[in-house]
């Protein structure tokens, strides 16, 4: 490619106006495990595949969906270790906000600050961009919200979105099934069906992870038995 001589330094633009490292980071995200999120009328659901490299891995030790604050949760597609670093930084920023204002950070502010961190790593020396895209789900005074943050640091608000492998099929499926006034339970069923579409093999309560937030504003990750109930309803 004509761009390849410009791919050695992150902070150099290529002649076509792209930052090649960010393109590569997006490719890394695109080969990660599928994750998706759906914003319902009364809450948000985020879900991801949890394919483990071997059946000997203890699946309870792997947590792909994490809470950033009691009312904001996040899921990713891409590199797990990069995700852990971002979660740590975002949690710290949320707590700093609380310490200053004694008020919980609004979802948009936390998304903005996380995106600013990701952008920093595309413009500094000696660092590389994060190889993850995040789906941040939260419920605050402005209602339920879902944001996607990319390695470049750009963020978008979505009604429903998917990332990772199989993203185009998943998005088409979501486009067909999404309605404005969906209830949270319908959204969970839709999320499971969307994951099932692209899953190679049999989906079960141990190889997917689901996080939800209801109007009570408490983000929770569903336990395997709760996932099992929803799976049975779907079937």
């Amino acid at each position: 490619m004509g761009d390849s001589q410009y791919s050695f330094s992150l902070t150099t633009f290529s002649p076509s106006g792209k930052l090649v490292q960010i393109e590569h980071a997006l490719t890394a995200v695109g080969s990660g495990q599928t994750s998706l999120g759906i914003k319902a009328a009364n809450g948000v659901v985020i879900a991801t595949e949890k394919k483990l490299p071997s059946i000997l891995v203890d699946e309870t030790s792997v947590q792909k969906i994490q809470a950033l604050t009691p009312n904001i949760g996040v899921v990713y597609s891409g590199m797990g270790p990069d995700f852990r670093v971002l979660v740590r930084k975002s949690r710290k920023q949320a707590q700093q906000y609380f310490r200053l204002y004694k008020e919980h950070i609004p979802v948009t502010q936390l998304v903005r600050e996380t995106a600013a961190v990701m952008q920093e790593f595309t413009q500094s020396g000696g660092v590389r961009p994060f190889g993850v895209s995040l789906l941040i789900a939260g419920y605050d005074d402005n209602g339920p919200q879902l944001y996607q943050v990319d390695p470049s640091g750009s963020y978008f608000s979505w009604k429903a979105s998917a990332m990772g492998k199989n993203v185009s099929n998943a998005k088409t499926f979501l486009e067909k099934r999404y309605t404005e006034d969906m209830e949270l339970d319908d959204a969970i069923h839709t999320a499971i069906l969307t994951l099932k579409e692209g899953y190679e093999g049999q989906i079960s309560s141990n190889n997917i992870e689901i996080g939800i937030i209801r109007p009570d504003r408490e983000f929770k990750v569903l336990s395997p038995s709760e996932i099992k109930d929803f799976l049975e309803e779907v079937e």
Partner: protein
Amino acid sequence: MVGKNCFAIASDRRLGVQLQTIATDFQRVFKIHDKLYIGLSGLATDAQTLYQRLVFRHKLYQLREERDMKPETFASLVSAILYERRFGPYFCQPVIAGLGENDEPFICTMDCIGAKELAKDFVVSGTSSESLYGACESMYKPNMEPEELFETVSQALMASVDRDCLAGWGGHVFIVTPTEVQERVVKGRMD
């Protein structure tokens, strides 16, 4: 002082250096937004600088979050800013008054290093604070309408500053309700 769905915030108008009176129209009560006022007593230069810093922080907050700050949030911010200077403090005691969610009145005061003190009825600060505590305590009634609140606050302020040689030269009273703000200058003993 808190009234029924309204609050009053008032100050005297003297600016002095120990015994010499420099100005008799000094403003000590500042507006942060339509439903939030802060009064700063103590060293005049610190009061002015602190006010400028707080307006700066509030304007940035308004731009980022696209809303006004709630009074409780603002009080926490002031407390944090004062404590940042724990070992070289601003020599001011703020009095914060605002209408919060559902236009509930909120008042609080703090010392010069940010120890918040919330109250449901009235808060005072300044050189005449001891007289003010006494006057407010005896004159305060809960659920006063704006007109009665104005009378009470003016009487309490004038009575207290008259007994204090470092305060006085008139009073400046703001009555804030959900729909309007009345600003009045009270004539008092000019000495």
